[in-house]
């Protein structure tokens, strides 16, 4: 019902949208990955993250790029929960009791496995504690419920926020993941704008 359309609101909306759009144009840094996910506008912006040394230098490139393993094969909770989860060691060992057991990194992993400890991974991508972010819903929107999108191409969706992890060994933060980043994407993709959707 548009009977109560608010002129002031419309006007202000136009102005704010206009300025936001301008901002987006300015903020866009050419050269960052433009994933061509259907029905989606990839978020723009880049961030120069620190190199985070991990207990085991996990090669994402070998797994995701060379061996073409689906991201969700290991980060299996992403589709079911708010967190994507670090794969359990048992999952690693599923392959690595046979594959590449002579590699230094695998030996280290086996050591952890045998001593019944999990490697002390360091967190790379984090949002503040007052932010409620759920992987499940984002994957649903851009992947599972997204017409014309192939589940095999999940890494392109992941790349929205995590960058081209395929090209990295250990993950590095390449998107700012701050409120502006989130909100620009929400605006472009008709995400919710209600504060309590993301803040807790």
């Amino acid at each position, binding site marked *: *019902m548009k009977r*109560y359309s*608010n002129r*002031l*609101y419309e006007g*202000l*909306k136009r102005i*704010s949208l206009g300025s936001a759009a301008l901002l987006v144009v300015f903020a866009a840094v050419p050269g960052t990955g433009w994933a061509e996910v259907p029905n989606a506008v990839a978020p723009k912006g880049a961030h120069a993250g620190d190199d985070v040394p991990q207990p085991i230098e996990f090669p994402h490139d070998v797994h995701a790029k060379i061996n073409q393993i689906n991201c969700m094969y290991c980060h299996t909770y992403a589709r079911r929960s708010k967190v994507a989860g670090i794969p359990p060691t048992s999952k690693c060992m599923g392959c690595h009791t046979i594959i590449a057991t002579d590699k230094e990194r695998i030996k280290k992993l086996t050591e952890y496995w045998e001593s019944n400890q999990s490697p002390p991974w360091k967190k790379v991508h984090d949002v*503040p*504690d*007052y932010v*409620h972010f*759920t992987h*499940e*819903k984002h994957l649903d929107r851009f992947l599972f419920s997204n017409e014309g999108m192939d589940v095999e191409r999940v890494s392109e969706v992941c790349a929205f926020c995590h960058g081209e992890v395929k090209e990295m060994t250990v993950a590095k933060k390449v998107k700012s993941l701050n409120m502006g980043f989130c909100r620009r994407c929400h605006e472009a993709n008709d995400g919710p*704008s*209600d*504060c*309590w959707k993301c*803040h*807790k």
Partner: protein
Amino acid sequence: MSLQNILTNWSQYRKGHEQGGFHDYEHMWGMAVDLNKCIGCNACSVACYAENNLGIVGKDRFEKGQGMHWMRIERYWDEPNLAPGVSEEFPSRGASFLPMMCQQCNAATCEPVCPVAATYHTPDGLNAQVYNRCIGSRYCSNNCPYRLRYFNFYSYYDWSWPEPLNMQLNPDLSVRDKGVMEKCTFCVQRIRVAKDTARREDRKVADGDVYPACVQTCPTDALVFGDMLDPESSVTKLWKAHQVELGKTKQHKDNEELRGYRIFEGLNTDPCVMYLERVREVEV
């Protein structure tokens, strides 16, 4: 909160008053509190502490009036409607207990006064408080006739949860630092989970899918919670049965003996919590 939110909420508020009721809401979470059942045992209050990471302030600060009881049980000795009772030697009809949580007013007085719009109305009909937007002007609390907003006068995190008590903290909502206003949220973190689950299962949130911590633990079922837009929910039925409606400053009932009322209704805050009058047998 964006400008859009401010303006849409404002127009919705106006709309609600012109048309009687709210049309664009996804849900309208509401409650009914049966004072006939409530025994004043305080379980709800402690459950709230457990669920919502409420800080323990300690004796001195409690004395100063800086306690953080989002859900509080008030106890009064008088019962104006039955008998004055003041001159009596004993309170022969017992005490009057009143659980007070945020009334989630539809025309919340706290919302328009916040300078940074940290408190606003959600499409769920909830009166939201965005902690990380709050700058601590405390105007909202001043303007709440129910006094249901609590301010973090200190960094409770520094001493309220000595290790390992901090391991009990609920990661589904933040631990508020000093300078932030907070209040009952109807356990929005639980509502969020219920909505996610319902969505995953491709259905609507059903009555009974979600309870705030106080409702879930209430030993006497005095608290009823649900979606007031769902005609089948128990809370809607209760409101209907007691002929209490949203968007009114005075209820007009066919049967004046029905127990439902809202506290400070006349102030036009339009609260989403209905109380049912306490009952006493006066023939003994």
